[in-house]
């Protein structure tokens, strides 16, 4: 049992981390498109983000999982199944990006314009000043929001159980139907989720402390 749950925990973490990486990349792209100069791309991105946020997460997961096979079938006349892990990662990554892009956009806008101007006055190239001056400061603003969305993402990985990936919830489901002890196994899964959440919160707090160590402390 312990081995089964250990593997399932690794699967949950793998799903969550790969969705996080995909989500952060997509979120940055969405945020830059929304701040960008092309009006059509701006509207398209805003629409997509709004749609993703307005749909139940389970619908997005099902849409990507069942819909991708359906779309491939319509296009190529062949039935190819997309793995639950891949479909889950894409769906959860998209959902994460829809929320995180707003955090990143806000964080980028929160960096004082004078910073870019000062960098320019010092003769620093635009791209270099964006990476070296703007991003580190925006990171500090974005971290709390991105951290909260990570906690949401972690819990959303349970939805991938419904399309058959052997993560924590699915493992609990299988053991429950085998042993007729549903309360025990769902509780075990719940406790593991709780522990991962608590560890994440601890890590996020120390990351936050590190990111703001240079901030001036104003005491009343």
């Amino acid at each position, binding site marked *: 049992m312990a081995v089964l749950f250990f593997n399932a925990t690794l699967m949950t973490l793998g799903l969550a981390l790969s969705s996080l990486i995909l989500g952060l990349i997509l979120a940055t792209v969405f945020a830059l498109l929304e701040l960008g100069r092309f009006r059509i791309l701006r509207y398209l991105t805003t629409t997509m983000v709004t749609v993703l946020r*307005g749909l*139940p997460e389970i*619908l997005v997961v099902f*849409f990507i999982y*069942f819909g991708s096979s359906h*779309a491939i079938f319509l296009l190529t006349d062949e039935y190819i199944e997309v793995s639950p892990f891949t479909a889950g990662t894409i769906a959860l990554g998209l959902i994460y990006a829809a929320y995180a892009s707003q955090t990143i956009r806000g964080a980028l806008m929160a960096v004082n314009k004078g910073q870019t101007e000062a960098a320019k006055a010092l003769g620093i190239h635009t791209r270099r000043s964006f990476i070296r001056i703007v991003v580190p400061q925006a990171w500090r603003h974005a971290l709390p929001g991105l951290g909260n969305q990570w906690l949401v993402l972690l*819990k959303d990985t349970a939805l991938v159980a419904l399309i058959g990936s052997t993560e924590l919830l699915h493992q609990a489901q299988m053991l429950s139907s085998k042993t007729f002890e549903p*309360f025990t196994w769902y509780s075990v899964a719940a406790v593991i989720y709780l522990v991962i959440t608590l560890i994440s919160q601890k890590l996020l707090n120390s990351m936050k402390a590190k990111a703001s160590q240079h901030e001036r402390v104003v005491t009343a």
Partner: protein
Amino acid sequence: MNLEAIMDYMPQLLKGLETTLELTFASLFSGLALAVVFTLILSLRFKPLEWLVKAQILLFTGTPLLVQIFLIYYGPAQFKGLQDSFLWPLLSEPWFCALLALALNSAAYSTQLFKGAVDAVPAGDWEAALALGMNKRQTLIRIVLPHAFRRALPAYGNEMILVMKGTSLASTITLMDLMGYADRLNARTYDTLTVFTLAGVIYLTMTGIMTLVIRIMERRALAFSN
């Protein structure tokens, strides 16, 4: 995706709308009632109850909603004693289990929001009320809570939408809500893209309407400020 299919599917999907809406409002209402009581307990620091509320919040915000739904719906069957008790008719009812899970989940998140808003009320408000001779409980109920709830409204609006979206998980315990009918229709027709797109359009319409209503409520509640 053709018009004929849409005309065929739409009425079938809309059959689930009633369950989705009922579940949303019932969960929001019971969740809100619980959250108000929990916020009072936390703010007044009723000792043993305070610990219980904190444990409830930790449990329900730290685990996935789907796990909570499964635990409440499938869990009790393990205990013979529960199956013979008067609670069994309720606990074997998917509608009640979904409501219970959603209400407790929403109560946990809402209590966090409300407690944060209570803590954010300026100390001067408390001091002014105390100077006028009000005791702690009166101040909390008459001065601080009305102020805090108004301030928490935008965040609570998001929570309302999350609960509405969360009701779709009830379909996993055999409840035929909007998502339940979408699932059934998909399994029968294999017309996945059309069916789920239509279900998505209905959910988006609901989110849109809720967003508008929340915005109007916010404007009313905060009309006196700024």
